[in-house]
């Protein structure tokens, strides 16, 4: 088998003369995507800003087959504003709100420029803004100012039910403001700033190799995927390819993480439907997956495995034991999943619940199971493969019931079961290849060279994207675009015709983590 080719996918950078020129390029690429396959379109994958001495630099990411293109342009120095992208590309809305929060630059013409992850009072916020990318420490303490959030106007008979930030259950902090006349949910507002931790700024000044520790703790339920995306960026800067056995170990952990996450969604959905036995069964399966991961590496979340240049160690479980345990898990999980998808009282709650229209999914570039459930498939493992994925069979793992593109909670769950089957298929292949590869090299030297590159990985929630700059062996800017951030922006759109009791199903079927959103 050939060694893995991490550098196979490209991430070129194109610098534009002005912001309007940049938006033209982005809008053109996104319009091409809407025109359908073959039109040469690209998916809008995010927009971030970086503080530089001369002003703010805007970077837009356009994902296509084989790589992700970065297009960037500088905001006119001293302007403090730029023409907004959101009127042209709606998916940019949350990104521009975040940039406004962190840098204080105003996207002029943005239809709804409310604070998102760091509400601050006062116009522009002055020097208080954290401004990622600016050398030196940020202000010692920045406190969000809730009074800067708008109060929404309500009509007669309408009232607002605030869910959160302290939720009813063991959940991450977020506030859903449900505006309802009683039972329907005509409108939903999200407040995600509560758990903003300033993660991106904490990368800055850290030795490049230490950054992976923080990446693993950016979105805990996707620790492996975040570590992979970060390390892919460093490996692309240093232009090194990880050894074949390391690439296989990475796939093993990434797919086990996917299993645990998808089982967690099944637990939440079954729990919401009041199916006690199903909740218990999937809970036990998930516990077994996490114990297997713990036995393999010492961490139940696969932390400490992925390091720049390879992996830290081989799994502490023999190939035969691993395959035996995975076989047991697969039999148990597939049987229960089949039963679940045949339980009509459960499916009644999922069918036509939380519908995301296919054209909206495509337009927004919805990621992971949320996109796939609405017929928009852009799986980084397939489209922009990395590590051992190019050499492993990622295709149809066996006879399946075909695509699920109804866009509802049921379709998203069916997509997850397909991915679970695919993960088992990949784990078996990777474990077999790893046994064959023998005691090969597990890491190569990955010098912290100066430079900048993108890295990506397909997390259980969808593609994770890291844009890393290194100078003098230390990180100078690390922009993180989690799938949770990108997909959550669609969350408030899917409640048409749904009622309050559908809420837990819709939330669970999105399967997002607020830690990755607020960062």
């Amino acid at each position, binding site marked *: 088998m050939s060694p893995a080719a991490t550098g196979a996918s490209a991430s070129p950078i194109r610098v534009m003369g002005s912001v309007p020129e940049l938006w033209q390029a982005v809008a053109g690429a996104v319009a091409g995507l809407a025109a359908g396959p073959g039109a040469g379109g690209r998916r809008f994958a995010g927009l971030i800003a970086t503080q530089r001495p001369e002003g703010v630099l805007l970077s837009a990411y356009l994902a296509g087959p084989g790589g992700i293109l970065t297009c960037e342009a500088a905001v006119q120095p001293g302007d403090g504003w730029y023409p907004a992208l959101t009127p042209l590309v709606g998916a940019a809305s949350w990104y521009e709100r975040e940039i406004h929060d962190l840098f204080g630059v105003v996207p002029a013409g943005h239809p709804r420029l409310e604070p998102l992850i760091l509400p601050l009072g006062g116009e522009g916020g002055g020097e208080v803004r954290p401004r990622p990318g600016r050398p030196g420490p940020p*202000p010692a303490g920045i406190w969000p100012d809730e009074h800067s959030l708008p109060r929404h106007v309500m009509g007669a008979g309408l009232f607002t039910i605030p869910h959160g930030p302290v939720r009813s259950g063991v959940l*991450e*902090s977020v506030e859903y403001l449900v505006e309802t006349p009683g039972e329907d949910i005509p409108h939903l507002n999200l407040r995600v700033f509560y758990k903003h931790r300033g993660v991106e700024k*904490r990368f800055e000044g850290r030795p490049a190799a230490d950054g992976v520790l923080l990446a693993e*703790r950016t979105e805990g339920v996707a620790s492996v995927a975040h570590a992979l995306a970060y390390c892919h960026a460093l490996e692309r800067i240093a232009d090194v390819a990880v050894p074949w056995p390391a690439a296989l170990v990475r796939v093993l952990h990434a797919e086990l993480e996917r299993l645990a996450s998808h089982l967690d969604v099944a637990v939440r959905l079954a729990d919401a439907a009041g199916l006690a036995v199903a909740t218990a*069964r999937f809970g036990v399966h998930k516990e077994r997956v996490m114990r297997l991961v713990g036995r393999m590496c010492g961490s139940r979340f696969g932390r400490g495995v992925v390091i720049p240049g390879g992996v830290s160690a081989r799994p502490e479980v023999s190939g035969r034991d691993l395959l035996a345990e995975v076989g047991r898990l697969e039999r148990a999980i597939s049987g229960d999943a089949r039963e679940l998808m045949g339980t009509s009282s459960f499916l009644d709650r999922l069918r036509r619940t939380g519908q995301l229209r296919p054209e909206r999914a495509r337009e927004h570039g919805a990621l992971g199971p949320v996109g796939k459930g609405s017929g928009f498939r852009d799986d980084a493992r397939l489209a922009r493969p990395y590590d051992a994925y190019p050499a492993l069979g990622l295709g149809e793992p066996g006879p399946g019931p075909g695509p699920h593109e109804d866009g509802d909670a049921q379709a998203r769950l069916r997509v997850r079961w397909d991915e679970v089957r695919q993960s088992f298929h990949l784990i078996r292949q990777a474990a077999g290849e790893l046994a064959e590869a023998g005691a090969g090299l597990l890491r190569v030297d990955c010098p912290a060279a100066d430079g900048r590159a993108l890295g990506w990985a397909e997390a259980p929630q969808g593609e994770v994207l890291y844009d890393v700059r290194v100078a003098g062996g230390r990180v100078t800017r690390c922009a993180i675009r989690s799938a949770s951030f990108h997909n959550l922006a669609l969350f408030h759109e899917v409640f048409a015709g749904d009622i309050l009791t559908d809420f837990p199903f819709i939330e669970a079927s999105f399967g997002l983590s607020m830690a990755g959103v607020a960062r």
Partner: protein
Amino acid sequence: MSPWVLRGLREGVVTTRWPSRPDAYAESWQGPAAILDPRPDVAPDLAALCPTGAIGSTADGSVRLDQGQCIQCGRCVAERPDVFGWSRGPGNAALSRDGLVVPQLPETEPGLAAARAALRARTAMLRRSVHLRHVDAGSDGSEEQEILALLNPVYDVHRLGIFVTASPRHADMLLVTGAGAHGMAEPLRRTYEGMPSPKVVIAVGTDACGGGLLAGSYATSSGVGAVIPVDVWLPGSPPPPFSILHALLLALGRLADGSDR
């Protein structure tokens, strides 16, 4: 009969009997780093090994490790296996923040006994009906999963009379996760104040104990101890369900003596 009933019976009892019976998985757990040899012959800048600054030394030059800052990255263990190793078992929690610093100083012993007695007096009336409320104060999302795991059939904390409640008004104990994000300071304070006395607060995870890698961030308080008073400190990145269960029982005084610190 519903097919789910038969499925539920398929595997028999999967529930652990810990703590009344030993559990191999609980005992084998690889907890925060620990010190094997506090006075190594060669000790050039051991503090530099730790990305969160958990390693320090006392005035007399012996090595100390603050498990409340340990994110279990394993660098110290890999670099100096003669000095550092892993702690084993679920007993990772302490009744004071200083109690997380290893090796323990002998003079903390009387203070520890007093803290244990005071906590026991407060929790005595809770007996076998304990209701938990959780607040996420800026976690990475993994601690929530481990707390929730306590409800799955493997741990099944209901067997111990421990339940999760939605309302702070019904809660006896508060599990707080995360590094103390500024946005959650006020909601956390309000939840704490909304709980009836006696109440017990457990800081779950290294981030909650000392901020971990997010200590010193502009958006966090470097741990939840700066926001509300904490009774039990549980490090871990994240702590596994058995460690969380150990911390709960420690707060309730339901562990055999000598298994706390």
